[in-house]
């Protein structure tokens, strides 16, 4: 199941969860701790075999989600590219640790293969954790970078980028996937393995105070002025991130009267719907945010010069729709269609919704 790490520049057929795991290892991830949870066990199992084959690799099946994220904190403090993964309920348990990673300015990558919720929910694909991921998720005033791959090749591309962002900004990065994306087999071209010597140096890491003064990594700041300053420091970092990395895909938006906004698996379904309605002459496009935090506000705003009607399609009851409204600031009519709880709409179903909205808004009269 594991392609030889010498395979580069050629297409291999792989399951989505394996693509993320293999890409993480090629990006230099050498520490993984995780806990069994469906629908992402293939990820953890892949890491178990892959790390066993690496002299400097560590895999730990942790006693809990909480232990796993704290092992990642320790590994990150020690300078490793470190990762954990889980699915929705497990990610809730990790939130304290993610808050510590943000406060202690430690890089790490966390994969959430979202499932239906709330509570135990089910094991079907969902986007119910959008708010949790994009609003920090744990306690305190912080954000995490959130990447939403569309599947296939992007799983490989964004995984490498997640580790780069984590190191560059010293902050946790969340890859938001779902059960369908994790299971689907698709052709991908894997990236070549990173040269450990070329990974970013970490002059802040804990390694033992040999030939230098001792240092510590903490999050407790009892002094209110210091804590306020730390919050502002994080805020400045988040401003830089917001300026530097927003990313989105626009598909058939040039002539569109209606744009569907969707991410991840929902965007793939929407793409299918758009192909269908284009066949009957409706001018509909897709805007697909790839970074969910920071949200690609500017790109969406630019669309509003030519587009008035938006349909936000999500696998939940309406979460990202708030970011769309915040981005447009009234420069468009925002409609919503959602299927929560693990229901996956078909392209035909979304096409019907698009078609009906298109005619209700009399968009056919515009061209």
């Amino acid at each position, binding site marked *: 199941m594991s392609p030889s790490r010498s395979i580069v520049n050629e297409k291999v057929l792989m399951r989505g969860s394996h693509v993320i795991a293999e890409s993480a290892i090629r990006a230099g991830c050498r*520490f993984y701790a995780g806990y069994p949870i469906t629908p992402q066990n293939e990820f953890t199992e892949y890491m178990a075999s892959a790390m066993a084959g690496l002299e400097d690799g560590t895999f730990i099946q942790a006693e809990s989600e909480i232990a796993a994220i704290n092992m990642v*904190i*320790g590994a990150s403090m020690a300078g490793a590219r470190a990762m954990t993964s889980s699915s929705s309920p497990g990610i809730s348990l990790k939130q304290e640790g993610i808050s510590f990673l943000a406060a202690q300015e430690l890089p790490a990558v966390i994969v959430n293969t979202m499932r239906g919720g709330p509570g135990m929910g089910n094991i079907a694909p969902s986007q119910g954790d959008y708010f949790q991921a994009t609003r920090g998720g744990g306690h305190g005033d912080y954000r995490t970078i959130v990447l939403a791959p569309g599947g296939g090749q992007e799983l490989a591309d964004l995984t490498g980028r997640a580790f780069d962002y984590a190191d560059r900004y010293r902050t946790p990065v969340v890859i938001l996937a779902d059960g369908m994306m994790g299971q689907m087999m698709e052709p991908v071209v894997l990236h070549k393995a990173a040269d450990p010597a070329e990974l970013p140096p970490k002059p802040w890491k804990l390694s033992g105070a040999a030939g230098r003064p001792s240092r510590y990594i903490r999050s407790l700041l009892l002094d209110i002025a210091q804590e306020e300053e730390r919050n502002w420091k994080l805020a400045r970092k988040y401003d830089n991130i917001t300026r530097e990395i927003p990313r989105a895909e626009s598909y058939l938006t040039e002539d569109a009267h209606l744009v569907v906004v969707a991410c991840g698996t929902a965007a793939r379904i929407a793409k299918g719907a758009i192909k269908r309605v284009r066949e009957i002459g409706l001018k509909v496009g897709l805007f697909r945010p790839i970074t969910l935090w920071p949200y690609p506000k500017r790109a969406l705003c630019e669309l509003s010069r030519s587009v008035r009607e938006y349909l936000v399609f999500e696998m939940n009851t309406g979460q990202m729709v708030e970011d769309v409204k915040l981005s447009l600031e009234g420069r468009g009519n925002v409609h919503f269609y959602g299927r929560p709880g693990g229901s996956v709409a078909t392209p035909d179903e979304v096409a019907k919704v698009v078609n009906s909205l298109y005619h209700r808004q009399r968009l056919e009269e515009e061209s």
Partner: protein
Amino acid sequence: MEKKVFERPRYLKKASTHYCPGCGHSILHRLVAEVIGELGIGERTIGVPPAGCAVLAYDYIDVDMGEAPHGRGAALATGIKRVLPDRIVFSYQGDGDIAAIGTAETIHAANRGERITVIFVNNGCYGMTGGQMAPTTVTGQLSTTTPGGRVPLRDGYPVDLSEMLAVAKGTVYIERTSVTSPKNILRTKRAITKAFRTQIDGLGFSLVEVLSPCPTNWKLSPVEAARWAEETMTKTYPLKVIKDLTGTPGQDGN
């Protein structure tokens, strides 16, 4: 010629601690710093302070330190040690941290035989939060949440974490000591030395539980608190080597 007979250990920072008069933490910090210096491991040691009064240990002990969320010291130390196996990694944890909210992390790190050393400070209460009942609070002991004294069938029995850990096959050396008298302080130092040696030799998990007075929350004077720890706490938590598979002589030469 003058001879220096007492000085600040190399790995203890020049700082006044925030600890209350009669608290065991300052003595214990000093012992840890002394042992690190004597073993010559100060440049390759990484400590993990807990949530609780000792969270500021990084202000006092002069080695690299990484603060853990409440109870997660053993998991965090595991992450550090697995990435840097040739470093010496210790966590410093209170009783509420290690034996209540962090029980799972501690037991499983011990069971995996992680090559880490744990300094477990048992003062029978949650000190920093104001003296609530801890898992280790002894039967009948007053606390802010057991105002009439701890009643086992209502509040639970005192948890003897060290004995529980001794059952785990990954643990190699576990000893319970105290810092209530010069004799016990010296025993504690020998135990900490042995615990670090256990790790240096790569044998497995080592832990020293230290009974430590908390005069402020026990509402006793420092002298009374030390006496209470010696006379009352030791009835539930006797001072002894609980497990020693190191194959080296113990405290009393046996």
